[in-house]
Structure formats: C-alpha cells, structure tokens
C-alpha cells in the first residue's frame, strides 16, 4: 500500500514537473502582445521603445528559424561559414526592421480569439487588432512553433491573410535572383540596411 502510494506521488510529481512550464500558444501570444502594447503606450523615447522591443523579439521570435525559411532553397547551397554569417546579418536586419515597424504604433489593442493546432510543431493563434478612427479592425494570425511546448516561439505573423515571412522570403529571393544567384549580394543589402 505504502509502495503504491509512493509510486503514485512520484508519478504526480513527475507529471507536474514536465508540465509546469508548458504554456498554451494563445496565452503566449496574448502575453507577448500585452507586453509590447504596454511598452508602446508608455511615454518613453522612441529609442528606448526600439531597445525594449528588440529584447521582446529576441525572447519570443524564432529569428533563426525565420532566417532560414526566408532564404528558401538557397539555404541548402550555403556552407557552414556562410550560414553563420547570414544568421548574424539576418538577426541584425530583423531586429531593426521589426522594432522600427512596431515603434510607430501607439496603443495597439490586440485580443486573441482562438487557436488551431496544425500538428505537434505548429499552432495558429487567431487574434484581432481593435479598429480605431484611423484604421479598421485587422485580423492577425500568428504561426507559433511549439516543438518545445515549454518555449513556444513566433515564426510568422499573418495580417489579413498576408504572411510577413512569405513576403520576406519572396523579397530575398528577388534580390538573389536579380544578382545571378549570388548570396553575397543579399549579405551586402542586409548589411547596408542594418547600418543606415
């Protein structure tokens, strides 16, 4: 009796341990947008907002995953050094572009309405950006990478059905193609964007 009770306690402890940090993708998105929204509503300088938005992005966005996705089939042709160089350049570009896009928003109110699990690795979270006098209500969906349920990460933002990752992928592809497939051309453009 004692032995079975002990096993039961261990079992419960083990289950609770493995699930203690697991977070629902919808909760993850809501808490992330609330964090960003609170920051954007604060009366701090734009530079400060950009700095803090970069921290939020590093914690919640799968920058490496998006970076490889946006390279498309070209990623298979890169050697190890090129991949490393690309990831460094992409992260700088992404953080600058991401924070610059968001820092101009004031008081965005985003409410998560539902979530749809595609498979073990992906869940789509549906949300709505509340309309104002300046803009209509906007549907925003989030592709959440849930391979590690304890640490979900954003891989794409889909605004009114338009995927930002996909747009970026086609943009990068255009740059590579118009330079005869030379990846160095993309590296140069990314570097210039981050410097300016």
């Amino acid at each position, binding site marked *: 009796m004692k032995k079975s009770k002990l096993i039961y306690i261990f079992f419960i402890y083990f289950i609770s341990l493995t699930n203690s940090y697991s977070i629902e993708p919808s909760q993850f998105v809501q808490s992330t947008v609330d964090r960003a929204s609170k920051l954007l509503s604060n009366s701090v300088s734009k530079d400060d907002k950009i700095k803090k938005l970069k921290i939020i992005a590093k914690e919640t966005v799968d920058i490496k995953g998006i970076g490889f996705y946006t390279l*498309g089939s070209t990623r298979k042709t890169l050697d190890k050094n090129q991949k490393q160089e690309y990831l460094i350049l992409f992260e700088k*570009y992404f953080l600058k572009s991401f924070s610059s896009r968001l820092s101009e928003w004031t008081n965005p109110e985003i409410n998560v309405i539902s979530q749809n699990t595609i498979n073990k690795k*992906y869940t789509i979270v549906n949300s709505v950006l509340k309309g104002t006098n*300046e803009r209509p209500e906007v549907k925003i969906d989030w*592709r959440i990478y849930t391979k590690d349920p304890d640490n979900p990460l954003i891989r794409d933002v889909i605004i009114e059905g*338009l*995927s930002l990752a*996909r*747009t970026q992928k*086609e943009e990068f592809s255009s740059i590579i193609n118009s330079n005869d497939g030379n990846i160095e051309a993309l590296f140069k453009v990314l570097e210039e964007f981050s410097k300016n």
Partner: protein
Amino acid sequence: MFRKIIITALSIFLLTFNVNAGSDGELVLKKNEPAEIKDCFENLNRATFAFNQALDGVIFKPVASAYRVLPSPVRSGVSNSLDNLSNLVTIPNNILQGDFKKAGINSGRFVINTTIGILGFIDVAQHIGLPNYEKEDYGQSLAKFGIGPGCYIVLPVLGPSTVRDAAGSLVSVMGGDAWYNVTVKNDTQYFSDIDYYSSRVTSGVDFRAKNYDSLNNLEKNSLDFYASVKSLYLQDRQQKILNTNKIIDTQNDSDWEEIDN
C-alpha cells in the same frame, strides 16, 4: 466600334495564353500560388513601378494625406458609397461563379443601401444583419473557370495585376460594369463620363488613405519594395480567388517543416 474590336481581340489574345483545364479548389490554389507566377516583364514592370511611385509621391500620397484629415464618418461614408457601386461588378460575378445566394444578398444590399442608405453613404445592410460584403471581379471569375494568372504585370497608374486580371478589367469596360455603361458607354441624361472617372480616382485615393501608414512603413523597411508589393498583391489575389480567410501557407507546410532548431 473600332475600340470595341481592339478590346475584344486583346482580351482573347491575353486569355488564349492562359487557358488551362480544370477548376477544382486545389488546382486553383496551385495555379495562383504567388511563387509560381512568373515576372516575365520584370524590367518593364520595375520601370512602370518606379513611374507609379513617382506619380504616387506627386499626386496620390499628398491627396490621401489631405483626405485623412476629413472626419471619420465622412471617410467611411465615401468608402461605403464606393463599395456600394462596386456591387454592380460583384453581383454579375457572383452569378458567373454560381454563387446565387450571394448574388441575391448583394442585390438586396445594393437596393437597401442605395435607397435607405442615401446612395450607399450609410451601410444600412450591415446594420440590419446582412453578411459582410466581399468584392468579386471578372479576374476572380476567370480564375474560378480554371484560367491561370499568366505573368505578373504592373500597369501604369493602376498598379500590380496579372495578365488574367488585366483581361478581367477589360470585361468591365466591355459592358460588364453597369456603372461604366450608364456613365461612359451610353449617353444617359443622368450621368456623364466624369462621374465614372471621379469615382475611380476617389477609389484610388480611398485605398491609398486606408493604407497610408502601412505602405509608408513597408517602403521604409523593405530591402526590395517592388518585390514586397508584388508578393503582397499576389497573396491577396490568391485569398480573394479562393474566398478564404484561411492561412494558405499552412496548406503547404513543407518549407517550414524542414526548418528545425
């Protein structure tokens, strides 16, 4: 008459290059996949895009900026009126696509909004519970018939399109748009050419004003603005053709699936 022959010949020519059999959902999805649509005239398209951008900077952007200063009810009233007029293209396309229920609803919407809604200024139909309005055009109907998009093209002033969608626009001026017929095509005592063209220009300004910040932001943060606009336009068309709010990308997850951290 000569103009009509040229337009008809041009439409037939454009469509001949794009006719393909089959029209089930998956095939339509595949055909309209943005990555599959070729940019056959890229150099010319980029030049036209640059011309349109210059035109936007000189005309549309400043006008849209001034338009945004108007009170919100005025802007939404103008937008509602333009949507109401677009029913005259949407309804025949609902019928062409076999969606008779939507054709009925949109006809009801048009009658109610034109009369009680004071020429469409107030969207009374929405207030009484009719479903949200979704525009349809001849390009979308041609896609439903199984006609592929053809090459991506950028039209002067009008902006991004495809060969199929441009041919679809020609159908509107060949009698497919009742608003064009009563203003430009036929000499009625109630309307004139200027009513049609001013409604088209206002529609352009309204679109620019609605997307003022997002377009500025996109331009500022794009590495290749032309490629970004092309991608967004083609994704949007794909959504509209399929009449879906689904995330189309999830139907082809293979590219994401390969990426594992």
